[in-house]
C-alpha cells in the first residue's frame, strides 16, 4: 500500500542514499574532535531470522538480543570481562546456602507506558517467564529453580530457589530474561508479542512483519548501562534481509548503515573499503561443535571419539569455511564465557589417532581404507539438514578427515524436523550444533546425564554423555556460592570433557558487524555477543 508518508520516506531515503554516495567518495575521518551528534536514523540490516513475537520471554531465536535490546533493559549487565554489574538492580545478595537472592532495585526507572519499576514488577516478570501459559521456549528453562518471591518493600525483592543455581545472576543479564512493563503483564499480557513495552532507550514504533521493525528514542531514558541520558539516535530501524549478497550490497549502496551477520567471504572487502568499518565479538557459551552420540557404537567407545578429535584438522576446516574469520575453539567453553579455563589437548595428531584406533581394536583395514573389527566396518551416520551451507561444508570436510583415519562417515540429508526428532531419540552418530549463553552452566545443559532426552523429558544433552564424575562436578558448580571455588570446579569439568571427548569443539561463533564510517558508538551486549545501539550516532 502506497501512502503519502511512504512516498516521503522514499524521497528521504533517496536523499540519504545520495548523501551516502557523497561520503563514499571522501570518507570522513573518525575521532576528529566533534562529539556525538543527536538525531537522525540508523538502519540495521539483519539476516532472515525474524522473531515470531517481540516478547523476549517467548523467544529463543539468536536475533532476540539485537531486536529486543533497544526496547528492554535487564536486571544486571555483563561486562566485557564477564563480571556482572548493576542495571535495573542496584545491588544484590546471595544467601550462604545459595537459595535466597535479595535484589535491591534501582530508583527512578519508568517503563514506556509510565508504569514504575519496583519489586512487584520484578516478581511479575519472573512469574511471567515461568507461567506455562507464556509458552516460554528458553527463559522458563533458564529460571527453572525459581520457587517464589517475596516483596520486602518497594525497592527490595527476595527471590527463593528450590535448589542452588549459581548461574541465576548470569542468565538474568540476558535479553531473553529482560524486564517487561508490569502494567502490560497485568492488564494486557496478550499484547506483549505485538506491542512490546519495556524501559529501554528506544520505544517500539511499528513492526512490518516479514520486512522490519522501527523504534523511536525514549526521551526519558536515564539508566543506560554505560551512560546516563537518552539515546543519540532519533530513530532506529531493523530490516530483515535474507540473502547474504543483498545485505552486503545494501550496505555498499547506503540502503542500510550497519549490517549484522556479515558474510564471512565479504569481511576482507569491508576492511579494505575506506567507507566501511568492521567489528566483531565472539559469543559466550559452548563453541560450535560436531556432536558425537556416545550412547551407541562406534562412539560409545571413548578411544574412537578421541581418535576422531585428533584426526580432524580443525583449523584447516574452520579457515576454509569462514575465510579465516572464525577463531578455532580451545575447549568446551568459548573464552568469552565466565569460568572458561584455558586448556589444550585438541591438537591435530593423525599418528595418535591411528594409535588410539588400534588400541580400541580397529586394527585391520578394508580395501577402501576403512578400519574393520570382528568383520564390522568402522562406520557412522551424520545428519545434515542442508539449511546452513557452512554446516554442510564442515560435515563434508570432517568426513574426508575421518576417512583418512579409517572412519567412514555417511552423511544423510534430512529435513530439520526429522533431524531434530532423530537427534532427540539418539538415532544418529554425528550432528552439529552450538549453544550460546553467558554461563559455564551450559556444560550442565549439554552434558549432565539428567538432560538426556527420555520419553518423559526433552533435554539438550545431544551427545547422550553419561559420566558420574562430570555430573557430580556440574552439580557442585551449580551449588557453589563462592566465585573462586566455582571457577575451580568448572576448570575440572572442562578438563574432564577434553578426556571424555563427547564432541569436537570447532569454533567460537562471532557476531560479524560492518558499518558505514558515518556510524559511531556501536556497543555490545556481552551477555550474548550482540550489537547494541543505545550509544550509537550518525555523523
Amino acid at each position, binding site marked *: 500500500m502506497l501512502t503519502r508518508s511512504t512516498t516521503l520516506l522514499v524521497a528521504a531515503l533517496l536523499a540519504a542514499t545520495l548523501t551516502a554516495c557523497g561520503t563514499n567518495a571522501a570518507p570522513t575521518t573518525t575521532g576528529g574532535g566533534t562529539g556525538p551528534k543527536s538525531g537522525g536514523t540508523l538502519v540495521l540490516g539483519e539476516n532472515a531470522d525474524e522473531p515470531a513475537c517481540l516478547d523476549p520471554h517467548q523467544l529463543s531465536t539468536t536475533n532476540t538480543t539485537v531486536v529486543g535490546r533497544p526496547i528492554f533493559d535487564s536486571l544486571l549487565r555483563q561486562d566485557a570481562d564477564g563480571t556482572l554489574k548493576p542495571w535495573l538492580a542496584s545491588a544484590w545478595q546471595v544467601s550462604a546456602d545459595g537459595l535466597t537472592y535479595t535484589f535491591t532495585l534501582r530508583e527512578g526507572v519508568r517503563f514506556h507506558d509510565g508504569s514504575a519499576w519496583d519489586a512487584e514488577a520484578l516478581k511479575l516478570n519472573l512469574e511471567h517467564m515461568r507461567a506455562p501459559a507464556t509458552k516460554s521456549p528458553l527463559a522458563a528453562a533458564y529460571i527453572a529453580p525459581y520457587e517464589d518471591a517475596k516483596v520486602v518493600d518497594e525497592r527490595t525483592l527476595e527471590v527463593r530457589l528450590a535448589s542452588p543455581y549459581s548461574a541465576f545472576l548470569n542468565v538474568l543479564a540476558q535479553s531473553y530474561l529482560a524486564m517487561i512493563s508490569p502494567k502490560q503483564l497485568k492488564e494486557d499480557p496478550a499484547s506483549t508479542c505485538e506491542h512490546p513495552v519495556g524501559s529501554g532507550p528506544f520505544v517500539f514504533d511499528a513492526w512490518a*512483519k*516479514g520486512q522490519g521493525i522501527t523504534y523511536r528514542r525514549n526521551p526519558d531514558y536515564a539508566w543506560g548501562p554505560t551512560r546516563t541520558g537518552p539515546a543519540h539516535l532519533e530513530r532506529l530501524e531493523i530490516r530483515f534481509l535474507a540473502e547474504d549478497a543483498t545485505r552486503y550490497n545494501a550496505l555498499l549502496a547506503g540502503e542500510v548503515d550497519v549490517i549484522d551477520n556479515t558474510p564471512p567471504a565479504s569481511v576482507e572487502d569491508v576492511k579494505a573499503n575506506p567507507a566501511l568499518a568492521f567489528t566483531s565479538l565472539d559469543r559466550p557459551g559452548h563453541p560450535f561443535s560436531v556432536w558425537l552420540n556416545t550412547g551407541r557404537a562406534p562412539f560409545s567407545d571413548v578411544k574412537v571419539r578421541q581418535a576422531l578429535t585428533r584426526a580432524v584438522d580443525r583449523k584447516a576446516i574452520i579457515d576454509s569455511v569462514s575465510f579465516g574469520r572464525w577463531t578455532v575453539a580451545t575447549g568446551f567453553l568459548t573464552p568469552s564465557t565466565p569460568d572458561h579455563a584455558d586448556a589444550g589437548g585438541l591438537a591435530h595428531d593423525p599418528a595418535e589417532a591411528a594409535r588410539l584406533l588400534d588400541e580400541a581394536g580397529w586394527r585391520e583395514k578394508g580395501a577402501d581404507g576403512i578400519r574393520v573389527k570382528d568383520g564390522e566396518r568402522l562406520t557412522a551416520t551424520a545428519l545434515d539438514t542442508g539449511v546452513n551451507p557452512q554446516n554442510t561444508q564442515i560435515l563434508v570436510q570432517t568426513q574426508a578427515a575421518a576417512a583418512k583415519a579409517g572412519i567412514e562417515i555417511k552423511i544423510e540429508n534430512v529435513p530439520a524436523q526429522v533431524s*531434530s526428532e532423530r537427534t532427540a531419540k539418539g538415532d544418529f552418530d554425528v550432528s552439529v550444533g552450538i549453544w550460546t549463553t553467558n554461563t559455564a552452566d551450559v556444560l550442565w545443559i549439554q552434558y549432565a546425564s539428567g538432560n538426556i532426552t527420555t520419553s518423559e523429558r526433552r533435554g539438550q544433552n545431544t551427545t547422550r554423555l553419561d559420566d558420574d564424575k562430570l555430573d557430580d562436578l556440574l552439580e557442585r558448580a551449580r551449588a557453589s556460592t563462592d566465585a573462586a571455588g566455582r571457577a575451580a570446579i568448572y576448570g575440572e569439568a572442562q578438563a574432564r570433557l577434553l578426556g571424555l571427548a563427547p564432541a569436537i569443539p570447532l569454533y567460537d561463533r562471532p557476531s560479524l558487524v560492518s558499518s558505514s564510517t558515518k556510524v559511531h558508538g556501536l556497543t555490545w551486549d556481552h551477555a550474548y555477543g550482540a550489537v547494541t545501539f543505545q550509544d550509537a550516532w550518525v555523523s
Partner: protein
Amino acid sequence: MTTLRFIGWRLLAGAGVLWGAATLTFLVVHFTPGDPAEAVVGGEGAAPTPEVLAQVRAEYGLDLPWYQQYAAHLWRIVRGDFGTSYRLHTPVTQAIGEQAAATVELALAGAATGLTLAVAVALATARRRRWLRGLASAAELVAASTPTFWLGIVLLTVFSFGLRLFPATGGQGPASLVLPALCLALPIAGVLGHVLRESLEEVLDEPFIVSARARGLGDAAVRVRHALRHAMTPLVTMTGYWVGALLGGAVVTETLFTRQGIGRLLVSAVNAKDLPVVLGVVLLSALVYVVVNLVVDLLYLAIDPRLKEAA
C-alpha cells in the same frame, strides 16, 4: 435460468475444492515428521521445559487423536473462525490481513507488466521477418524457463548492486516494486507472449483482416484494433495458469526482495507446522482459484453465446 443453475453448480463444486484442499493440507502437515509442539516452542537454541510442552499440547489440542484434531479444525473453519496462529499468537485473519496487501500489490504489478510485455512483443513480431520472430521466440523460451530465484538474483546483481537504479529491498515505495514485479512478470510474459503470437499469426490470415487491409487501414491499426481482440481469447483460457504462476512466484520473489507477503508467511508457517495459518493461506489461494475460474467461465458465456446452449 440456465446461467444461474450453472453458477450454482460451480459454487457447489468450489466448496468441494475448498474442502479437499483443507483436508489434504491437514493430512500433509499432520503426517509429515516432526512434533508440532516442538515446532512451536522448540528448534535451534530452545530448551522448552516439560511444563511448557504440556501447555502447548493442551492449548492447541495436539494431544488428541488426528481425526479429532481434523474435525476441530474443519468445524472451526465452517463457522468462519480461522483460529489463532501457533507461532505468531495472533488471529490468522490478522496475520493474513497484514500480509495480503503487499502480495496483491506485487501480483497486480506482475500481471500488468507481464501482460503488457507479452502483448507488445507479440504485436511487434507476429508475421515479421524470420530472424526477428526467432529472436523473440528464443527470448520468450529463456524467460519462461528461467527459475524465478535465479532471475531475481540476476536482476538484483545488475540493476540494484551494479547500476544502483533500484533498491534491493522491499517496502521503500514504488521504486522497490520495480524489480520484484519484473521478476514475477518475465516468466509469465515468456509463455503468454509465445501463445499470443501464434494466435495473432492465425488471426492475421483471416478474411476479415484482408478486408480491413483492403479498406486501406495501416498495418499497426489492423494489428491493434482488429487482430489483437480476437487473438486474446487463448490468454483468457490460460488465466488459471498465470494466477498460479503469480501465487507460486510470489513465494520466491517476496523472500528474495525482502518484501512482506503471503508467500513468506506460508513458508514460515509450514516450517513451524503452524496449521491454522497454513490452512488459512491454502483456503484463501483455493478460493481465489475458484472465483477466478468461475469469472472466466462466465466471461466465456458473455464472449461466445453459443456456449450458453451447450451449458
